[in-house]
């Protein structure tokens, strides 16, 4: 039986951020993910916003961790070669009566330590956000808001954690957690953690189970919170519309959500949404006609020239809601068990700060933390042709011809990039899409799916019929021709 100091359950942004942070120390760590690939749960539908901390209660844990995470994530992005762009955000008021609410948000954000806030007026807005509706009367400007690719952050943090010794197991859904009584934290293995194929032992278990964090917690005997999925539908526009906004645009927030936003993304395509709808089904990620109507109405209030005709893709994600704040705590009743649950927005931003928070909790419980003599804090930046100037492409393609072999024409993704994604762990078409953007453009894979299918089957040494979109049961083609 494999034994670890720490098992992290959940391979989303929270689990991988914790894994990378803990991999600085002399600890044996495993990360277990139930899906076929990392970032296939809550993280895959994250909008990629690095929030400045403007819309949170000054007393909340998530407010504190958001502001801290906004500072920390820049360094992580730099070290891992993830593109981070500080684009800034505008929270827009459309009536003079709403201006006091902006002032209130500014004051609260100021208490949390959000820097450089200012109220801007129509003259500023026309100059710096020219396509914004002329109805806008003022906005709260938070220049420290930024964007990055949420999946690439997860994959790159995981890759870096693995480089530093973390063992990652995908397709390992935890089915049993047995605390083995009173062995004591300093001593022998304390937990047995079972998946359908393997049983592990660990002194500590960290539950970053996202939508299923309550079920994981219940396996360990802690039943006192419930995750309720809150669905958000998002719609992605053609890259041609990138010029329509320069900042992240927010309306004034409502009780349950930040409203319908116009989001800039790391890849250039504007994204609009999300809706916010509470439900029970943790698998239901269907979009709806009603969601589209809501989103369009909200967006056109801000950018009147955005239209449904510009939509090239859409999806829904589920936020793991457990009350108003994050739940991050050591469960005294089950010594060694740490819950990191209810990590909805701003979970991506907060992830690095959550990791440090968890580290502090582990230290408090008496886990000895000794830094490794060598920690690899960097990884080479992954090349994306769409993200580099042609002069650089010219140099690179001479060295590596496969970079000049374009597979995905809409997003300009080369054979080399797809091969690289597979080498770094992609095993599905969605995994390749999230890492490279191949199949994510305006033709939606109409032209390139066949070739990617073949590249993946080749790399895995399996028949084409075994290649999946997102894991077992989602095979792309049913069978070869002429078979019964």
């Amino acid at each position, binding site marked *: 039986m494999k034994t670890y100091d720490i098992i992290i359950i959940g391979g989303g942004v929270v689990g991988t951020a914790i894994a990378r942070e803990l991999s600085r120390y002399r600890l044996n760590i495993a990360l277990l993910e139930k899906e076929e690939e990392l970032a296939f749960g809550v993280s895959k539908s994250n909008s990629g916003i690095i929030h400045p901390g403007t819309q949170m209660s000054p007393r909340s844990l998530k407010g504190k961790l958001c502001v801290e995470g906004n500072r920390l994530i820049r360094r992580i992005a730099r070290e891992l070669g993830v593109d981070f762009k500080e684009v800034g955000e505008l929270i827009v008021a459309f009536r003079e009566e709403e201006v006091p609410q902006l002032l209130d948000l500014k004051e609260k954000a100021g208490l949390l330590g959000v820097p450089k806030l200012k109220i801007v007026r129509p003259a500023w807005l026309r100059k710096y956000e020219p396509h914004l509706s002329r109805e806008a009367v003022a906005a709260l400007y938070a220049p420290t808001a930024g964007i990055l690719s949420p999946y690439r952050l997860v994959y790159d943090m995981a890759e870096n954690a693995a480089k530093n010794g973390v063992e990652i197991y995908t397709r390992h859904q935890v089915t049993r957690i047995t605390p083995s009584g009173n062995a004591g934290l300093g001593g022998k293995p304390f937990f047995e953690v079972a998946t359908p194929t393997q049983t592990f032992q660990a002194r500590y278990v960290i539950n970053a189970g996202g939508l299923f964090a309550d079920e994981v917690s219940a396996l360990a005997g802690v039943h006192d919170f419930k995750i309720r999925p809150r669905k958000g539908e998002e719609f992605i526009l053609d890259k041609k519309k990138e010029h329509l906004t320069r900042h992240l645009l927010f309306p004034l927030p409502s009780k349950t959500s930040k409203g319908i936003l116009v989001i800039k993304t790391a890849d250039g395509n504007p994204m609009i949404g999300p809706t916010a709808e509470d439900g029970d089904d943790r698998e239901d990620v269907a979009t709806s006609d009603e969601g589209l109507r809501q989103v369009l109405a909200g967006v056109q209030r801000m950018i009147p020239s955005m239209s449904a005709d510009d939509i090239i893709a859409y999806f829904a994600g589920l936020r793991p809601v457990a009350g108003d704040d994050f739940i991050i705590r050591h469960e005294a009743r089950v010594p060694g068990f740490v819950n990191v649950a209810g990590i909805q927005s701003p979970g991506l931003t907060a992830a690095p700060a959550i990791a440090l928070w968890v580290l502090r909790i582990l230290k408090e419980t008496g886990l000895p933390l000794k830094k490794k003599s060598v920690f690899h804090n960097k990884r080479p930046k992954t090349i994306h042709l769409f993200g580099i100037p*042609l002069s650089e492409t010219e140099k690179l393609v001479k060295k590596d011809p496969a970079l000049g072999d374009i597979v995905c024409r809409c997003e300009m993704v080369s054979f080399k990039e797809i091969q690289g994604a597979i080498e770094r762990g992609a095993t599905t078409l969605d995994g390749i899409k999230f890492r490279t953007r191949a199949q994510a453009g305006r033709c939606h894979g109409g032209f390139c799916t*066949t070739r990617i299918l073949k590249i993946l089957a080749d790399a895995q040494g399996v028949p084409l019929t075994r290649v999946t*979109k997102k894991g077992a049961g989602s095979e792309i083609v049913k069978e070869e021709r002429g078979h019964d």
Partner: protein
Amino acid sequence: MIKRDLVIVGGGPAGMAAAISAYRHGVRDILLLERDQFLGGILNQCIHTGFGLQYFKEILTGPEYAGRFVKDMGGIPDIEVSLRSFVVRLTKDKELTVLKPGVLERIKARALIMATGCREKTREMIHIAGSRPAGIFSAGLAQKLINIEGLLPGKDVVIVGSGDIGLIMARRFVLEGAAVKAVIEIQKETRGLIRNLVQCIEDFNIPVYYRHKIAKIHGNRRIEKVSVVKVDENLEAIPASQFDIGCDTLLVSVGLIPENELIEMAGVAIDKKTNTPQAKALNATSIPGIFVCGNAFKIYDLVDAVSRDSAEAGRQAAKYLGATP
């Protein structure tokens, strides 16, 4: 910077007809860029017959039709074909940046013919609600998987839209032993050719639901069923009429869009509704010396007409260059 008299982008039926015609009208320096590793474009996967009736007065398959042009071009040394060549940038001065395995080239053309074809509209463009499982294909992708790769995408098929590719694929799936459960068309009649409706749908007793649309796609990993709903004359759903059809595959055949992103980048005036160049005459654009032909200029029903009109583009380019036959 490499200088060329005429550069043609696209090696499908339009680009090949334009190249041959430009040569016949006196152009002696022709470079044809094709991003795939073969000439012929989409014809390569159209293994059904019905091509060439007007142009060659013969009934040919797609590959046979393309093969005639490939052969003709092969006999003309003044046409240089560059495969696996992907144009990444185009300027109004007809400067092209071309990416190939191993090299990025800059080419300045005196005249340019864009024969970039079209792409299929997707499920996302018509905003079909529901989940996003495996098993949803554009009709053209399914055609490529079956005809080129020898794979059967699925066995219980629903087709949304009655464009020609969808109709042809209905028959193709039946011939491969799959069940085609329904064709769903929001209009009150087919948007494909009548001969395709008769030969591919009626002859195989495939039910067509006119004035219906797909309300929702179901299934998490693989598509399991679609909800179908009748629409009124304003194309609005009539909720009480909703019913489900089980399937493991959904083909989307709801129309084609000309691929004109490159000339748009160069500053050619584009009609936003049709994604075609705003043109006063056949194959013309707002920039003198940049011509557009084939499905990039407008969506054609028949390849024969593409060949005819693209040959005209070759003549127009020759005239622009001052060439004499």
